[in-house]
């Protein structure tokens, strides 16, 4: 009995392995695997690209821009990063990049203070630090590339909500990322101040919930919103994960007509919802450009063309209509205004 | 060999000249006996008489070295347990092997449940069949309830029902009453008699002679692996039966007479609900007090309370003139009590440890007050005590699991001697160890007594108790039924007391109660 069963087990086991191979072949090769060990001495520009986490496609999109720039300027990019957006997981990568003496680090901080000490160490070691997307603490970077004019986003969000709510009236709710997320909180605050103005007096912000940029949590939260506020008009989700979850929930609940979704999202994700009217209007900045600009700045910093001091100016071909960028307070550079996606520009796609 | 008997029926099982050896030891030598359809046949004998070996042979666990087995007159080889079962032989063990989480019905039919369409188990059928079975036994059990929570007795009934479900022709009960209360025993008997009347041949292995008389039509006595006699119980008296059983003198190390000191330990009206009560006795320095009685009579339970493992519900314990109450074993240890437990592997030794580590385990805190273990000191202590008991070993760093049973037991003894006790409680100190080691252990025990320790010797080996003890305390169903001084102690006396029927002149000590009811009795192994 035992012997026979043993035989069977082995047989099954081998089947297991085969079927397994089937799966991996049926799927994408990991992009991060593509960037394998380029750790020869950094004669050419070697830049460490350190996103919040390596599974979020937002950063994959940004990296396409980084790679583009690197290609043009003949530099090397090492992508490293945790598979969870957690600061304690991000720090070792900073220290390792420091050890590797990369010329520059392009980072989206998982926690502005958490990563600061490590980044300062890196800067001490003569490495240029460019923050993008989510800022490290001031002083822990040479330049921070802000994806968008923050106050602008606040206004935009309010405007879109107003536009989608029938005659700019009714209940609206916000589905944000983590309650700790610096960007989202800034935008939400600005949005609130905007809502306070007379034009929006009939919009009632009933609730703000947090989906932690996690598909599951965001979905649950969105569902709860629909249940909790039967006559909700608009869900504003200033996060790519949140807006997608919200749109799906609304669509699946068959409420695409009564409840609208807006916020910041990927055309790649949102296209179908623009088409079916669940989310006619939303916005985002050009993420690849964000990566592109970040690398350009890193390059300039390393080559000493700029130092990151407030008031310095520089131009990047193909961006900002070839007009010069000016480094602002706290060495912040602003990519540009968010742009609006709707039926008119369904073809714009990244 | 077999004397002619009343029962008219032909033998359903017959054993001819069965012999079985384990390595050097002869377990059974040229045993012949027969078992008839519709009879209850008692099989009695002391420790090592060979009863269990015979049972195991019938159950197919062992194959005889020589001799033949006949079933209904046909020579049969029993290849294994399964085969034995298929031949219609069912064995009910002292401790049933059931699945606590499964229902009664399922335990009865596990493996051979009636299956309905699609080969799925037909629970209705199973349930009905089980109810029918218990109906036949005239027992009302909720066959739908899980076995967990059922008493040992009820579990045995399930085992019996199981054997019925396999419609066994031969039912072997291996010491089924050892852990049953009088009432449960009575119920069991009622059922066994019913089976007998339905033509099943029952082999009833027991130490309780009165049960044998009460239940069996015939009885067979084994001694030292040999068949002594088979006879109708009606033609026997208890006294004769006992003589058949213990008709030998065991060559034990003679006890050295030692002067008694003052009273070390005194126990008054000790009680634990549902286990024992009104237990009172005293132990003097240099005295060996033997505890005789059946399994479940409460001997071990008393010891556990004395050692602080269990808490008493009533009574007083006086140690060296001061009243004591032990919250845990370490408290008892510090007060100078040591307890060599019954189960060497689960309670006596840490098998992964070396001899030294085992010996010093109880006294580590005392030995190394500054926490750090100095292995030199540890070895010294271990050497000292193991040499005293001359444990056969390569050194104290040897792992205990590589020692023989006897030497392991000596290590446990050494461990407790190392704790320097005033009173030493020995629970079945010689169970399962070879004669040689047995004699040594006996020598050690009397030496210890001679050195002024008070010793309580719990043993089911009656000759041992008789040889070693200055006084024998007999427990029966949780009460002291006799307190017999050495000079008056005989096997018969002790045995009668253990059955609750005390010969007139053995007055129990104060606080003990005499109970007249005669249920269960005889020796225990």
């Amino acid at each position, binding site marked *: 009995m035992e012997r026979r069963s043993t035989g069977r087990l082995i047989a*099954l086991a081998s089947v297991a392995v085969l079927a397994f191979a089937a799966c991996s072949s049926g799927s994408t090769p990991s*992009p991060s695997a593509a960037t394998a060990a380029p750790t020869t001495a950094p004669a050419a520009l070697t830049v460490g690209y350190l996103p919040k986490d390596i599974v979020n496609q937002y950063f994959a999109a940004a990296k396409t821009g980084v790679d583009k720039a690197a290609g043009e300027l003949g530099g090397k990019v090492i992508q490293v990063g945790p598979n969870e957006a957690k600061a304690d997981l991000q720090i070792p990568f900073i220290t390792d990049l420091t050890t590797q003496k990369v010329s520059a680090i392009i980072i989206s901080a998982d926690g502005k203070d958490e990563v600061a000490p490590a980044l300062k160490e890196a800067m001490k070691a003569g490495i240029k630090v460019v923050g993008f997307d989510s800022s490290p603490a001031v002083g822990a970077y040479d330049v921070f590339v802000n994806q968008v004019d923050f106050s602008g986003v606040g206004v935009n969000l309010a405007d879109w909500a107003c536009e989608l709510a029938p005659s700019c009236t009714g209940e609206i709710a916000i589905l944000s990322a983590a309650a700790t997320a610096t960007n989202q909180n800034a935008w939400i605050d600005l949005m609130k101040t905007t809502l306070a103005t007379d034009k929006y007096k009939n919009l009632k912000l009933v609730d703000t919930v947090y989906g932690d940029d996690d598909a*599951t949590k965001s979905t649950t939260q969105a569902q709860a919103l629909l*249940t909790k506020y039967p006559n909700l008009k608009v869900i504003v989700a200033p996060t790519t994960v949140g807006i*997608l979850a919200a749109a799906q929930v609304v669509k*699946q609940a068959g409420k695409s007509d009564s409840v609208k979704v807006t916020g910041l999202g990927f055309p790649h994700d949102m296209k179908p919802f623009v088409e079916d009217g669940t989310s006619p209007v939303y916005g985002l900045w050009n993420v690849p450009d964000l990566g592109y600009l970040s690398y350009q700045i890193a390059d300039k910093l390393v080559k000493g063309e700029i130092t990151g001091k407030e008031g310095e100016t520089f131009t990047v071909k193909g961006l900002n209509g070839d007009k010069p960028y000016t480094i602002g307070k706290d060495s912040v550079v602003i990519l540009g205004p968010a742009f609006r996606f709707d039926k008119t520009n369904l073809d714009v796609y990244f | 060999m077999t004397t002619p008997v009343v029962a008219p029926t032909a033998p359903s099982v017959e054993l001819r000249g069965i012999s079985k050896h384990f390595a050097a030891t002869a377990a059974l030598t040229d045993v012949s006996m027969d078992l008839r359809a519709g009879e209850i046949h008692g099989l009695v004998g002391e420790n090592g008489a060979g009863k269990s070996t015979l049972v195991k042979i019938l159950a197919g666990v062992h194959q005889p070295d020589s001799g033949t087995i006949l079933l209904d007159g046909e020579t049969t080889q029993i290849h294994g347990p399964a085969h034995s079962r298929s031949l219609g032989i069912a064995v009910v063990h002292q401790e049933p092997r059931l699945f606590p989480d*499964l229902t009664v019905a399922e335990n009865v039919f596990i493996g051979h449940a009636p299956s309905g369409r699609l080969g799925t188990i037909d629970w209705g059928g199973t349930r009905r069949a089980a109810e029918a079975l218990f109906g036949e036994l005239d027992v009302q059990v909720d066959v739908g309830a899980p076995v967990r929570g059922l008493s040992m007795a009820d579990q045995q009934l399930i085992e019996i029902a199981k054997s019925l479900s396999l419609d066994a022709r031969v039912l072997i009960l291996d010491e089924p009453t050892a852990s049953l209360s009088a009432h449960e025993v009575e*119920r069991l008997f009622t059922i066994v008699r019913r089976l007998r009347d339905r033509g099943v041949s029952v082999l009833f292995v027991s130490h309780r002679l009165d049960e044998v008389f009460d239940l069996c039509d015939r009885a067979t006595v084994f001694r030292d692996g040999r068949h002594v006699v088979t006879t109708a119980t009606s033609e026997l008296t208890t006294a004769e039966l006992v003589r058949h059983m213990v008709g030998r003198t065991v060559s034990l190390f003679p006890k050295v007479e030692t002067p008694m000191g003052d009273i070390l330990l005194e126990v008054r009206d000790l009680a634990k609900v549902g286990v024992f009560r009104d237990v009172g006795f005293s132990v003097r320095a240099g005295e060996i007090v033997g505890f005789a009685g059946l399994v479940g009579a409460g001997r071990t339970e008393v010891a556990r309370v004395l050692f602080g493992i269990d808490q008493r519900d009533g009574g007083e314990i006086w140690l060296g003139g001061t009243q004591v109450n032990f919250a845990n074993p370490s408290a008892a240890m510090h007060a100078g009590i040591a307890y060599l437990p019954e189960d060497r592997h689960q309670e006596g030794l840490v098998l992964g440890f070396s001899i030294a580590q085992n010996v010093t385990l109880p006294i580590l805190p005392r030995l190394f007050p500054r926490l750090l273990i100095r292995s030199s000191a540890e070895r010294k202590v271990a050497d000292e005590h193991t040499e005293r008991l001359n444990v056969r070993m390569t050194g104290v760093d040897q792992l205990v699991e590589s020692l023989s049973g006897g030497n392991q037991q000596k290590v446990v003894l050494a461990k407790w001697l190392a704790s320097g006790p005033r009173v030493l409680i020995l629970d079945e100190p010689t169970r399962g160890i070879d004669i040689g080691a047995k004699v040594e252990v006996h020598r050690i025990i009397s030496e210890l007594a001679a050195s002024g320790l008070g010793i309580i010797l719990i043993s089911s080996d009656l000759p041992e108790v008789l040889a070693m003890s200055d006084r024998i305390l007999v427990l029966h169903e949780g009460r002291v039924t006799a307190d017999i001084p050495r000079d008056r102690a005989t096997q018969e006396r002790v045995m009668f007391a253990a059955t609750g029927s005390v010969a007139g002149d053995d007055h129990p000590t104060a606080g003990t109660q005499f109970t007249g009811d005669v249920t269960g009795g005889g020796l225990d192994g």
Partner: protein
Amino acid sequence: MAESGVTATVGAARTRGQWLSMVARQRELSLVAIMVVLGGLVSISAPQFLTPSNLSQVASLASIIAVAAVGQAIVVITRNIDLSVEATMGLVAYCVAIVLERHALDAPAAITFGLGLGLVLGMINGVIVTLLRVPAIVATLGTLSIFRGVDYLVAGSHQVPLAGLPPGFTDPARDSILGIPIFVLVALVVVVIGSVVLRSTRFGRQVYAVGSNPEAAAVLGIPSRLVVFTAFSVCGLLSGVAGVLWVMQFGTINGTSATGVVLSVVAAVVVGGVAIFGGSGTLAGAALGALFLGFIANALILVGLSQFWLQAIYGVVILVAVSADALILRRIQRATAERRVR
């Protein structure tokens, strides 16, 4: 006299242990009862709680966990545990999503593939535990990080969006038949089939036997290793089902999908009254456990009690459940002990 004595004893002997063990066996009922009461209380402050739409949403979400919990329960009943379920779910979810996005397979084929993959991953656990003799907790702790690692490896930073899935693929997540959400039906089917198998087949009883008393099982010649292997395989298969449901529920799938789910699954099993040391428990219990936890989560949000309380309440629920089990068991045993010699 003897006769009556007989019947009397057994009858008397059981009564006390009996109702206690009955309570023990009625975990399902008590869970339902609590949920009803809870539902009533919540709906006072949050009327939407008891609306069909809400209930079906909650039930659908819970059904995913329930399916996985059923698999887990089978493994736990055999005195093992499978910590790798969430990784299995995640990997299956992504593989199914990706083959759909790349049109490698059509929906039915993809689903079959997903279930197959789950089965295979379960078998891998089974082999490691039974053939390589690695304690289940260690083995599945290992495969947890291996499967998850493979998931990341396969997925990278790619995310399969809803748009990547064939139209209508996610419909089952909201559709219902005769008012019963499809997910709930799936869970029901799984529970029913599983329960029938466990209750009425040779294998099913062997599962309990192996967990309840391994020695006795060995004596009866039950092929323990084969039973355990099968249990792990089934657990993998059901994790696969859960993974597919996950795709339908959330539409967007990446390498991190289903992270952290194992806690809810094991919690559901424990709350469902399955003994962590094997031998007892029902699949219905495990499923109800999942539903119960789902209800609490939803109720908290609706009552407006911050979701931060959720974790703490989960913890308390688990502790209460396990203490209750132990308490009842102990009472039963004491009830027995008190019938010993006196």
